[in-house]
């Protein structure tokens, strides 16, 4: 065990797996000597050499497209895209190919590819450095989508993502890359994909969230506890496939749900969660399912970005609304 930040945990997971699996290679922009703009790959080129830690041309579609070929050839490529906003250039490769290599080839070729990318806002960076459009990938059959919320989670989920036989979009909440440190198990540490985590148990309301938003949600839960409202907090971890069972079980118990995400509201994952609840737990509902989300606008530039992201107060307000409904 050592106390690591999320970015260090990512680095450790990459190191661990590269050491274990000679077929794993990293590719991306500035991941070599520079160690990645967030230093996720710091020290890896020194250890594993430039055949395995490969700086590529500035070419997101090229990175994902060649990674698909690498994966089909039998390697385990882990691609870094510098920011989620630059993944849009690779959408055709992801949707039309990564997600379909296995089914198109009837299982003959597979695509065990991980695309890692920092995501979400709050880091005072220029436009398109604060994207949280996970819904695009969740809506794409054939992809998995994973978002860790703490350092230990990051290590355990990333290792599982790399070993997964299918393509995984691994979204790292950049806001909390360095904000939290926690004990992270050394060596093997695997958290299965597809299972949500109940971070806090409660009887009165279910807070459903993931990534950086877990933290204001926990804060809100703490404050509400002082007022006697016991919130259950669920960290989804794997967004696709989603652990519907854990959500429904919780809402059947609490009768109330608030979903918190950074992404724009309309057609975000929050909508899917609300729809599932409304379909499978309607009779348990004692209040409307509320969503606390980003607005249906681009994320503002740093000067006013703070206004975009859900904060503890907004979560508390929503909780109060459903509790008092």
């Amino acid at each position: 065990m050592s106390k690591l930040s999320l970015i260090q945990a990512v680095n450790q997971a990459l190191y661990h797996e590269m050491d274990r699996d000679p077929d794993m290679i990293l590719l991306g922009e500035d991941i070599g000597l520079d160690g990645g703009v967030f230093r996720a790959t710091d020290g890896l080129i020194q250890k594993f050499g430039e055949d395995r830690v490969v700086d590529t041309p500035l070419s997101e579609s090229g990175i994902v497209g060649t990674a698909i070929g690498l994966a089909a050839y039998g390697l385990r490529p882990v691609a870094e895209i510098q920011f989620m906003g630059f993944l849009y250039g690779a959408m055709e490769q992801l949707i039309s190919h990564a997600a379909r290599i296995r089914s198109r080839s009837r299982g003959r070729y597979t695509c065990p590819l991980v695309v890692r990318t920092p995501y979400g806002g709050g880091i005072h960076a220029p436009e398109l450095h604060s994207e949280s459009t996970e819904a695009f990938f969740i809506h794409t059959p054939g992809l998995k989508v994973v978002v860790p919320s703490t350092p230990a989670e990051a290590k355990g989920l990333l290792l599982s993502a790399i070993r997964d036989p299918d393509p995984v979009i691994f979204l790292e909440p950049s806001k909390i890359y360095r904000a939290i440190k926690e004990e992270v198990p050394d060596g093997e540490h695997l958290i299965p994909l597809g299972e949500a985590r109940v971070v806090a148990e409660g009887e009165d309301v279910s807070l459903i969230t993931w990534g950086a938003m877990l933290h204001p949600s926990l804060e809100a839960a703490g404050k509400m506890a002082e007022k006697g409202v016991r919130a259950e907090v669920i960290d989804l971890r794997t967004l696709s496939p989603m652990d519907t069972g854990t959500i429904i079980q919780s809402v059947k118990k609490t009768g109330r749900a608030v979903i918190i995400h950074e992404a724009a509201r309309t057609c975000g994952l929050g909508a899917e969660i609300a729809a599932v609840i409304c379909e499978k737990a309607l009779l348990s509902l004692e209040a409307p399912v509320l969503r606390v989300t980003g607005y249906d606008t681009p994320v503002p530039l740093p000067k006013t970005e703070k206004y975009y992201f859900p904060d503890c107060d907004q979560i508390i307000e929503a909780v109060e609304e459903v509790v008092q409904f």
Partner: protein
Amino acid sequence: MPKKTLQEFSVESIQILDENGKIDTTLLSQTDQISEKTLKSFYESMVLIRAIDEKALNLQRTGRMGTYASIQGQEAIQVGCAAALQPSDWCFPAFRATGLSVLRGTPIKVIYQYWSGDERGSEMQDGQHDFPISIPVGTHIPHAVGAAWGAKYKKDPIAVLTTFGDGATSKGDFHEGMNFAGVFKLPVVFVCQNNQWAISVPFSRQTAAKTIAQKAIAYGFEGIQVDGNDVLGIYTVTKNALEKARRGEGPTLIECLTYRLNDHTTADDASRYRTEEEVAIWQKKDPVLRLKTLIEKEYEWSESVDEALHAEVDRRVAEAVDAFEAIEPLNPLGMFDMLFETLSPELHDQRKKFTQRLGKLNKEESK
């Protein structure tokens, strides 16, 4: 050095077998000699893939197959490439490559399955290192580059070949793939079947460059044009490029200048956008006829031998059609079962409901 020339480039064009069926022996002897047997087998392959193509058009017309993209006029490229490839090489064809696929090992029946909208039409044979066709033009090019990268990483002594059309060169994926291949000096050969049309868009609207070959200059490796109706030229150039790739000397772009003799697909009507005169000119350059002229002249290939070949080919194709038509229906559950290694609970649920629905639908149909 106020004004100086940094680099000079030239773009060459190769032709070994000319339009009258005459061979340029100097060029040929530079490479290994092509034997009588090989020449005849090239011709046999061309006759075979043309017959497969004709039958596909016929199956489509008679409602037994879906939309189909004819390869007529482009047979030399596919035969030349197939002959130059080793079985251990990997191949990433675009959709106008029926001939190449057959020569790489795909049963004729499977070709017809693909074009009839049956997913089993994308299955590869054991030991056949080919990617299934995908539809978005040009986007498979980076996959070929990635596979070549994989081979280089694993030190496998193979090369990768990918084919695509002139239209494909306009896509960003062509650019990004070519560029990676150059930067990492990968064992990959890019074969552009420049048939001068992308559906109705003529080559001059696809690029202001006079050749596709010169596009390699942008990526720092060699590009060369070859007469796309000259199987000997294509075979020779491609073989050299593959060997160079296997030697670790990097990628090559080969532009095969040819012509699409038929409509773009069976859903297209080329008379809307191009003249009969243009088609007629290219009909005279037919790659199959050209090779026939050669072997007739050089190796006494007689009409009766030719007829026997056609009869044999027709028999093979007819057999394949029978097999194609006898195929049991595709199980629609593949939609779920082929997607991930393991089904998620939600997909499992959807699959279960679908199975119930399928039961009902089948009952209704059998009524």
